């Protein structure tokens, strides 16, 4: 045995390597089949991160098509409702650098709005019903329509089609129940405050609900 190896070192090496590769290949192949993990397809995972407003601001007819587009290489910064949080999450998932929001598709807003139909002005044309991507508007032809507030994603798509302009995007009313503490100010901010006002604002309450009257900007 040893003699043969010593005589034909090259062939012996080849044989050994081939043998090893066959063995390891078999092991790996077996493992790949045996321990296969059925992961979520990437589109599913991206879709899960998108805010599901189905607003189409990204240029695709809904969140899932955009998720598919991202999976096919579209940029990930086209979703204003999701904002930077969503971009970061997707960047994290895809392991890419997180870009900032592409303002061409709209601006990020802190205030969540929902559609509101001024019911006495509604003529019952059903146009908004057709435009709603999540079936959140109830009503029938020539009958008054109304928005199911809990289902409205605030996508804005029903405002434009309304012939009598009776749909407003109103900020969601906030009560004490929705309130939460903000993160404390950083040390530097605290020191600054200390010097400027002689008090420390550990809490900076953001009561700026914005003067959003969503319906008028078209």
């Amino acid at each position, binding site marked *: 045995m040893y003699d043969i190896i010593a005589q034909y070192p090259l062939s012996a090496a080849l044989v050994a390597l081939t043998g090893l590769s066959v063995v390891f290949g078999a092991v790996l192949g077996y493992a790949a089949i045996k321990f296969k993990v059925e992961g979520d397809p990437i589109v599913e995972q991206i*879709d899960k991160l*998108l*805010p*599901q*407003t*189905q607003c*189409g*601001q990204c*240029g695709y*007819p*809904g*969140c*899932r098509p955009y998720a598919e587009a991202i999976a096919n290489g579209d940029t990930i910064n086209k979703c*204003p409702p999701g904002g930077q949080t969503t971009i970061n999450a997707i960047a994290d998932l895809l392991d890419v650098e997180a870009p900032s929001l592409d*303002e*061409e*598709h*709209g601006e990020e807003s802190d205030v969540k709005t929902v559609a509101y139909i001024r019911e006495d*002005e*509604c*003529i019952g*044309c059903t*146009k908004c019903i*057709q*435009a709603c*991507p*999540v*079936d*959140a508007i109830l009503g029938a032809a020539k009958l008054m329509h109304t928005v199911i507030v809990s*289902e409205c*994603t605030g996508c*804005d*798509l029903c405002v*434009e*089609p309304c*012939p*009598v*302009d*009776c749909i407003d995007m109103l900020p969601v009313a*906030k*009560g*004490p129940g929705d*309130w*939460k*503490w*903000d*993160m*404390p100010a950083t*040390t530097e901010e*605290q*020191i600054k405050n*200390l010097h400027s006002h002689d*008090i*420390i604002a*550990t*809490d900076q*309450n953001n009561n700026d609900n914005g003067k959003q009257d969503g319906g*008028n*900007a*078209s």
Partner: protein
Amino acid sequence: MRKVWDLIGGVHPPENKHQSVQSCIGTLPLPEKLIIPLNQHIGAPPKLLVAEGDSVLKGQVLAEPNGMVSAGIHAPTSGIISEISAHSIPHPSGMAARCITLVPDGHDRWADIKGVENYREHSPEELLDVIRQAGIVGLGGGGFPTAVKLGTQQSISTLIINSSECEPYITADDMLIREHAKDIVEGIKILSFILGEPEEILIGIEDNKPEAYEALEPYLQDTNIELVEFTTRYPSGGEKQLIQILTGKEVPNGGLPADIGIVCQNIGTTYAVQRAIQQGEPLISRVTTVTGNACETNKNYLVLIGTPISHLLEHSGFDQSKCPRLIMGGPMMGFTLEDLNIPVIKTTNCILAPTGEELPTPPPAQPCIRCGMCAEACPASLLPQQLFWHAQSHNYEHLEAHNLFDCIECGACSYVCPSNIPLVQYYRAAKGEIRKLSLEKINSDRARERFEFQKTRKEKEEAGKAVKREARKKAAEQARAKKANNPSGNTETSPADDIIKAAMARAEAQKASPQEQRAKLERGIVRAESHLESVQKRLNTLEQDATEKQREQALAALEDAQLRLKDAQQKLADLTLPSDTNVSNTEKTVMEKSQASPREALEKKIATLKERIVITLKKIAEADDESLKTALQNGLEKQQTKLKDTEQQLAETPAQTNESTTTPETENAAAAAIARAQAKAADQASMSDEDKLKATVESLQNRLIKAQEKLASAESEGSEHIDAFRSGVEKLQAKLTAAEAQLAQETQ
């Protein structure tokens, strides 16, 4: 002597309780008005039973419990309901919520109330209902409806009465025990009866209240109630902590004390229960400590629920200039109030008005050195320093792995932190953030579901329509073929049936002509045209230096392309128009149609509908068969309504034609809106604020013009929606003026 377990962690801040136990529980004159928040408990807000202007008697129900977890509220004195509106409530946010304002009439007249004479003759359920109706909630600070807690289905082996009162400064329970020990013990007996006489009844009390201990002891002779004293250490009064101290058991994560056979009640609650059962008195007042060096007198008061804090402070010699912050609750878990008109509610055990020296404002936070003092102090065995670290970096996954939600926000970690880090605020913010995110997740999942559902529904509808159309087409063809074969009309099916079917098929083809199919054909035409163009181009280039054969080939290709284009156009025409329309016209109509604006298309539609009506009328006149006649008349009616609809639609369709004809009606409304919104957003992104405003004004002007046109057409047609159109126009005008004003301001 009973074995007492040690509190895990904990701190021992200066107690500061002696100030407010010098005198007995006092009362206050009636305030000018009482502000009673509707929701003073955890759970659903109660149902309002009174209206503004009603006069009520003391103890009268103002709102009744609404749902399982809810509590009612009662008039603390007699008087008139002057207002029911939003008022700032005791809440860390300082936000407003619905409150009933009661102006006392000064008579303090009781409504007719009656207690239960011998509670042992009643069933626990009846007693629970009394407690529920009396609006009793956990008075220790939780505010959880007591009846719900007592109504547990699990079998209870231990009833724990919490009189630990571990927070510094607060002495409300201490004083209540000293003065009402007998009633409290009575209340405990009632609770015990309701819970089916648990084996153990323990009163947990810290060793810094010897007077209260002595006051209770005599009444506990010959009872199975055990008074257990343990070392003063904050937060021994936390429900979970007290259970651990007294029994050594831990409430399982995500569970309730009832899961391990324990019910825990605050000692103030037992007193309220006793009052409600034996006197029939609802919860309309409570003992509240008013303390702190910014008040001259520190003592406990029996306060009516709804009494504004300013009233309490006025009678305590409060000096606001010395008091940088006003706290409701104790110095460890209380929250600051920014408004002195905030009322006392059922859970208000203390109003703390410290001076700046007493509780100094915290200095700026220094970096965390992970010294671990917080972990030593944490009663839940968490790692506060790690929680802080992850909260700072918004690392929510790690926060949950570190059991952030087991934090009881007792503040022991912040208390010991040598770096003065507001740890609890970090945890609260992080918790709020996580809750918000999970709520958003739920909402977005639902939105996705609904969106997907809508999609599949629409697809199904389309598929169903296509199948039906196919069937009808076939039927119509067969009928026609039969008719052709049998011109005498002697067919198996009656002519009426035939005609109706054909008409229906036509109508269906017209109405439900699948938009995709048409779009496809149109695309086919476009493709064919471009192909034709390219062939021609090739031919032109060939012209100069090609052989005869090549030229011939090219010409053939050109011809082929032309043929194909014609074919496609023909198909489109077939699809769009009923077969009985003049075929030679179809091409033209289709071309017109595909290029026409929606408005023109609609006009065309109206014209064809009118034509068809005329034809139908003629047919009716010709028909001799009675059944055929009625069928035709039905058809006529349908056609007429359709005509009306179309006209209506025409009225609503923007009169102004779009410059680009790329928005045919085949696209659905949503897609159009998306396109417009995108264009708008794209424009706006590249604009300055002023430009944006200008654009807004412009678009508003356009919309106004459109709306005015709509109005005009509606007026001319005498539409029933004139009013709606008119108000729409007015609104638009108002918006426009506002936008213009803003623009004017901006340009200045």
